[in-house]
């Protein structure tokens, strides 16, 4: 059975994703992808996993939602299962119990944020003092139902992922390509360019780009964005050397910058407070989007309820 080394979504799948076909708006799908991947990243950091394991999980997660709909598979379920699968693939095994406890903790934290009054923004300044007041987390006991419930979910979802991706789990990551290209461009020792490219590649993991473009294109995109932000000129047409298309890398950069804007992930260069001003209308709107994403990520039922609610709201008009 011949396999492409790095399977990518087809144009058809990108143009109308399974979730889109189930009437989930594209921007909601994008937000949910971010929410799912953020969970993978945070859980991975807490479990002390290498970045390659998290990245593999996130790529699998994105691929999965090009063959399946969020209407049928809850985002959090797939996110935890993709991470579990990837720990096995990357030979960095974790105990299932540790993984579940980590997720429960993270989900509890999100629930805490959701319980805050929605008119009170939780931006950086406030987060420090009052946002976490009253937050408590209890590690479930050894025989708690919740563990076995999650375990069943993970085993079932893991098989679904494998089945729906045709057991094709090869993930080729762009990090090493990026370093090689920087060497050729003589930028490796340039003022943390490599570090910034690395961050951009990790941020890109929250967008579906890894399932759309091959690794060398992603590597070029990270170099393009990093050098632009640092105002380092590159020779004209440098990306041609690395077999990348201008339109592809340009669009990747656009996706990252959108991500930074929507999720107020600050640019790696200037994590200065100047970018964020106080609770303006923008940030309220953004936070409401986050809330929506976190709620909908909980389960497919949440997605279905939301879709029904939306239809009802529309109906009387």
């Amino acid at each position, binding site marked *: *059975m011949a396999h492409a080394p790095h399977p990518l979504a087809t144009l058809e799948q990108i143009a109308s994703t399974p979730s889109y076909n189930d009437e989930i708006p594209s921007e909601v799908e994008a937000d949910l992808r971010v929410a799912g991947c953020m969970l993978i990243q945070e859980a991975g950091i807490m479990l002390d996993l290498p970045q390659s394991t998290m990245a593999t999980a996130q790529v699998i997660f994105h691929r999965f939602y090009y063959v399946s709909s969020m209407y049928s598979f809850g985002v959090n379920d797939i996110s935890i299962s993709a991470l579990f699968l990837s720990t096995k693939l990357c030979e960095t095994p974790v105990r299932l119990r540790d993984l579940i406890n980590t997720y429960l903790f993270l989900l509890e934290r999100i629930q805490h944020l959701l319980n805050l009054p929605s008119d009170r923004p939780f931006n950086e300044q406030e987060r420090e003092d009052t946002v976490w007041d009253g937050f408590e987390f209890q590690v479930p006991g050894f025989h708690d139902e919740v563990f076995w419930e999650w375990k069943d979910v993970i085993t079932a979802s893991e098989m679904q992922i494998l089945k729906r991706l045709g057991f094709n789990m090869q993930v080729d990551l762009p990090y090493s390509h990026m370093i090689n290209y920087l060497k050729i461009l003589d930028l490796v020792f340039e003022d943390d360019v490599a570090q910034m490219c690395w961050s951009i590649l990790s941020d890109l993991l929250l967008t579906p780009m890894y399932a759309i473009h091959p690794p060398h294109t992603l590597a070029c995109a990270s170099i393009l964005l990093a050098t632009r932000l640092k105002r380092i000129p590159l020779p004209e047409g440098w990306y041609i050397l690395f077999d990348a298309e201008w339109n592809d890398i340009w669009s990747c950069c656009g996706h990252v910058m959108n991500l930074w804007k929507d999720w107020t992930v600050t640019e790696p260069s200037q994590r200065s407070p100047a970018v964020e001003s106080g609770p303006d209308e923008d940030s309220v709107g953004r936070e409401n989007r986050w809330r929506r994403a976190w709620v909908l990520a909980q389960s497919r039922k949440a997605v279905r309820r939301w879709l029904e609610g939306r239809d009802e709201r529309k109906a009387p008009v």
Partner: protein
Amino acid sequence: MDLAARENGQRAERWNKGIKIGEGTFANVYKGTEKATGRKVAIKKIKVGEMKDGLDMTALREVKFLQELHHPNIIALLDVFSVKQNVNLVLEFLDTDLEAVIRDKALIFQNADIKSWMAMSLRGLEYIHRHGVLHRDLKPNNLLISANGELKIADFGLAREFGDAGSKMTCQVITRWYRPPELLFGSRFYSTAVDMWSIGTIFVELILRVPFLAGETDIDQLKKTFHAMGTPTEQEWPGYTKLPDYHDVGAYPKNPWWNMISSIGKEGQDLARDMLKFDPLTRPSAKQALQHRFFSSYPRPTAPKALPKPLAELRPRELAPDETKGKPLLAPSGNGPMKRKAESPQAAGRNVARKLVFA
């Protein structure tokens, strides 16, 4: 990324599942045929038990590596599909394995036959290593033989990539009789040389027709190794006393053990000694071994078709449980000295034996 889920059903339809020909702890093997062509295949159905944490890592490794590796001397993975919660691997059907061949005392091996098997294993292994993969469970039982005599390396349940030089790996791999001394001493950073040691012991086993170093425990394995070949000197294997699980198992005198295999000829002895060097860094790579004079000197290797085969070749071979999956049975230990044992990384430290059904 095709809509594999929809395809999955169609894929399952391509194959006919026949009688069960082997049963293991973690998989059952069935004989099957391709509906369209009538080609014989083996269908390995991996059990996903209630008590386990999802799909077994060994099954994942097997799928992952066999999808990537395509070589005449490596078993071909034809398809993967799942029915309900079970994963099915469709593999090419192979009649027998090298262990059955070695064990069949009615067969007489010529040096040219041994050379042919060695060349085929090394060619497969060279390909595996060239693609950055360690097999980590080479033994005669995992070298399968097709109807036309071709040898194919199988069972990638313990395989892993070794691209990252600094990554720590488990030393609880490779069936004990074929495990190199550095793993027995608990080395966590190792490379392709571990597979070369296994091939070396298989080479000697092909000549002697009995397992060369058949230790009953890990310590016994070391004792047998040093008893046969002499305790390594610091010069021979620099720094080995610093390995994590180093134990002094006694000083054995140097022994010209290669006289045991003098029937293979001078070049053969020389190759065996090279592959069974104590210092992993001095063992030849698979590629270097293939370029050894042994393979270019007289007699020429036998053509695969003409190699000796057990008489019962057309009967489906019986699979040992450990053959179908890399994990041992949960049986009490101390089942007698002649049981083959192997540990998977997960079973590290558990004192369990594997059962073997002799074909």
